[in-house]
């Protein structure tokens, strides 16, 4: 295989490429694919998802199935999740970690009957696959499900819409947040999980790419549903306080710096047996030097990725990693890495961007409350 990171790589098209264009999607290059950044406009699409339901094409993401003898132990050598304790049909958020504790990618794991289904970020999926092939023992088989699309239906009306088209061994309500199962979606075999990256209730749908146009049409024919582009996906996840790999997470950040301590399972911490455990567990005890925080920015002007966080003397001590105008908040918000001493909610900090200094206040995330439908009725 050739090096897939080079700039000479041709931009790929998704199975729904023509569908996006026919729907008026404005296409941009993202993660090596032509993808729709917006249809009618980011603001309108964002607000629509918060009040109704939106359909996102996230087929650029890597869908991987791992199987084989000793899979759970083998995976646990690469990430800090309790894979052995993952029950059938349940999902876990986890992190592929480098030996120094840096984050190679963030991902979702689901237990299938004889395998683990993994969804990884599109921009680094080939690196992830290379890493997994290199590090996992020969007994483990890796299949990339590149003949499948992945669509996300997100928003408070996602459930009622999807229910109209789904049949299965059990009703769709059997799925709560971070659970999945096999269903038939309008006659097509489909893995459905109650998950997503908007902070809203919603579902992710993995099924054969040859059915993609038919099912996208069917869902968007429902009055509650509109297609939503990458622009609103980004502003929704930012409001939900969810980090984006390559921006808020990278090989220089650790789970503790990134405030993703929940991804370090208790048993795995006690065993100290994941990559970078030595450093990560010390950081967890003593606190990280810098930490990912949320910021409410004063005024109306957004601060963007790359803007500098300043200390009282005006020296650069951190960086904004995501920032923009938050449609549901009605104000600019951001995520940044700041020194531990500046990370407490309520701390007022200064941000320099294009020769101008902005005031911002460290704020607990999410910026907009999550509305997940969790087990136990909450």
């Amino acid at each position, binding site marked *: 295989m050739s090096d897939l990171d080079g700039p000479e790589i041709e931009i790929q098209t998704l199975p729904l490429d023509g569908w996006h264009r026919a729907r008026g999607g404005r296409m941009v290059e993202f993660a090596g694919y032509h993808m729709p950044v917006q249809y009618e406009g*980011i603001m309108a699409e964002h607000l629509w998802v918060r009040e109704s339901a939106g359909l996102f094409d996230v087929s650029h993401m890597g869908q991987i199935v791992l199987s084989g003898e000793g899979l759970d132990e083998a995976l646990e050598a690469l990430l800090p999740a309790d894979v052995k304790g993952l029950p059938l049909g349940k999902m876990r958020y986890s992190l592929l970690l480098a030996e120094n504790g840096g984050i190679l990618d963030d991902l979702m794991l689901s237990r299938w009957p004889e395998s683990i289904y993994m969804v990884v970020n599109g921009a680094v999926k080939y690196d992830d696959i290379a890493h997994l092939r290199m590090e996992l023992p020969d007994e483990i088989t890796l299949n990339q499900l590149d003949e499948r699309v992945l669509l996300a239906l997100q928003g408070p009306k996602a459930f009622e819409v999807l229910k109209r088209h789904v049949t299965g061994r059990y009703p769709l309500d059997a799925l709560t947040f971070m659970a999945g199962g096999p269903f038939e979606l309008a006659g097509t075999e489909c893995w459905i999980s109650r998950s997503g990256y908007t902070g809203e209730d919603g579902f992710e749908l993995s099924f054969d790419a040859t059915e993609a146009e038919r099912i996208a049409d069917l869902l968007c024919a429902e009055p509650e549903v509109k297609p939503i582009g990458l622009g609103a996906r980004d502003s929704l996840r930012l409001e939900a306080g969810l980090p984006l790999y390559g921006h808020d997470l990278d090989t220089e950040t650790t789970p503790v710096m990134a405030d993703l301590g929940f991804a370090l399972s208790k048993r795995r911490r006690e065993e100290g047996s994941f990559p970078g455990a030595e450093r990560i567990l010390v950081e967890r005890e003593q606190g990280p030097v810098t930490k990912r925080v949320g910021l409410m920015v004063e005024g*109306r002007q957004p601060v963007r990725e790359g803007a500098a966080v300043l200390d009282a003397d005006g020296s650069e001590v951190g960086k904004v990693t995501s920032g923009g*105008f938050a449609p549901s908040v009605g104000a600019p918000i951001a995520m940044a890495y700041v020194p531990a001493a500046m990370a407490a909610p309520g701390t007022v900090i200064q941000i320099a961007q294009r020769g101008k200094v902005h005031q911002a206040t460290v704020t607990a995330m999410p910026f907009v409350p999550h509305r997940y439908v969790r087990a136990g009725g909450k």
Partner: protein
Amino acid sequence: MSRYFTEDHEWVDVDGDIGTVGISEYAQSQLGDIVFVEVPEAGKEVAKGDEAAVVESVKAASDVYSPVSGTVLEGNAALGDNPGLVNEEPESDGWFFKLTLSDPEELKGLMDEAAYAAFVAKL
């Protein structure tokens, strides 16, 4: 009064030696939802091609370049509270700033409405 356009999608209306500057319908449609506009203060000297204003959409920040040289008379105060005016009325109420032209000869290098329409059609 005549209207001129730049290849960067600014327009300038010229009435005597007073110019009014904004961004085109095409520019606002490309930017998408505008959430913040920063206009120059009265008295600021700008040269043709200088960054004179900033426009921010949900996605990104863009500079607005002055199509001509001159001295700023006023920025459009209405955009402070209602930056969306640039989306709604880019070529009228959503103007950015007015200036006194220091070199009206510069207008010769700009496009008229027909030339700009042809320019945009090729993009």
